């Protein structure tokens, strides 16, 4: 109980809320580093995944990149990046981008492939050009899955940005790493709590964004489609 009191006291200490080493600045660092890395990962992964999915090529590459990505520990990517470019913000950025690419790439490929070929044919039959089909038909239908990939990437990136404190960069992970090395458990616990809150908020926020990205037509379709796919024996008799 005394320990939780210490953690609370740590939060109440005004000096932890101001300056370069304060919570607001660390949060800002964490968010900007994660945001820029996610953006870079999306800029790399989206065109590749969407193009491969649109033309139906390179499926093995697009899907296996995720499996390989899972096998490489993110901690190892970060430390390897330090060996390549030194310590600081750059290795953290490189590692986070490398971590963010696979889920977006795989999901955008799968999302494009999942588009019903009949829908594509119907669009062609209505006289739509390839480019228009891509923008007006395929992308809106694939968007929920693409957003799911972005969400997975974002959560991974925010989580791993915590480890970036190990390579002499800031962010909320600073409190955890410093707390660990100074045996300052109040700071450690407080930092961990902040990171946990941030990642949960990111997850929930992006889940809401994913729902918003689902086009209205897809939302209405969902119910009758599902009912059609799995008829229960009782329903078939009735």
């Amino acid at each position: 109980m005394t320990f939780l009191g210490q953690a609370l006291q740590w939060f109440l200490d005004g000096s932890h809320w101001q300056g370069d080493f304060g919570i607001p600045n660390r949060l800002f660092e964490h968010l900007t580093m994660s945001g820029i890395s996610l953006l870079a990962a999306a800029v790399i992964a989206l065109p590749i995944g969407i193009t491969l999915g649109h033309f139906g090529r390179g499926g093995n590459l697009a899907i296996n990149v995720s499996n390989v990505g899972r096998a490489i520990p993110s901690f190892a990517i970060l430390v390897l990046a330090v060996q390549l470019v030194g310590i600081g913000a750059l290795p953290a950025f490189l590692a986070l981008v490398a971590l963010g690419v696979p889920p977006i790439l795989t999901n955008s490929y799968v999302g494009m492939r999942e588009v019903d070929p009949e829908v594509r044919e119907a669009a062609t039959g209505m006289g739509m050009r390839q480019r228009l089909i891509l923008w007006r038909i395929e992308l809106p239908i694939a968007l929920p899955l693409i957003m799911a990939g972005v969400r997975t990437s974002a959560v991974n990136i925010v989580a791993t940005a915590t480890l970036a404190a190990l390579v002499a960069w800031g962010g909320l992970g600073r409190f955890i790493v410093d707390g660990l090395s100074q045996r300052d458990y109040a700071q450690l616990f407080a930092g961990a709590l902040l990171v946990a809150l941030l990642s949960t908020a990111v997850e929930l926020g992006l889940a809401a964004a994913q729902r918003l990205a689902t086009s209205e037509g897809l939302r209405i379709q969902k119910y009758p489609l599902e009912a059609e796919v799995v008829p229960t024996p009782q329903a078939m008799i009735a």
Partner: protein
Amino acid sequence: MLATGVLGAADDPWIRWDWIAGHIPVIRDALTQHIELTLIAVGMPLGLIAWRTRRLRGPIFSITGILYTVPSLALFALLIPFTGLTILTAEIGLVSYTLLILIRNIVVGMDAVPQEVREAALGMGYRPLAELFRIDIPLAVPAIMAGIRIATVTTIGLVTVTALIGEGGLGSLILDGLIRDFKTPLVVGTLLSIALAIIADVGLAGLQRLVTPWSRGRVRI
């Protein structure tokens, strides 16, 4: 303290075989600990789930869902004040990640067993327990094994992070490389961890083929 400068990085090769030759016991211990941590982390939840899932499904889903979002280092850090820098802290963290993956896949697999098949089995006189073990579980094996594979590969990666709280298996080699700015242990730890993940994944895929002889020859996803 942890992140030292880039001193000596210039003439440090990626691999120094003499270091590896002199540190075989260290590497072997790290590998063994890595495997142990992984086995406990994947095995424990399986035991728990086998014990009884269906009734606890709702609460387990929401709790593990939250746990899965919390970054590993933060989760370990939240536990340290209570359980210290111990293997218990590492395992609580690792198990909470595998729980979600395993439960989700087992529930999906079990739910996908057609109701007609269950009814047919009961109609043939199967007792509920026999029906569970001889009908439901075998049919759910592909989904369950997929869960075990993802959980195992993910855990092998996460174990490296536990190096920061004094455990770590191969992660301790990676951390050593970071602290001393010395590439060889880093490369050895990373490559062995990746190799372990691939071997485990291929091995589990083989095991899956072995226990589902009826699915051979059909297209697998």
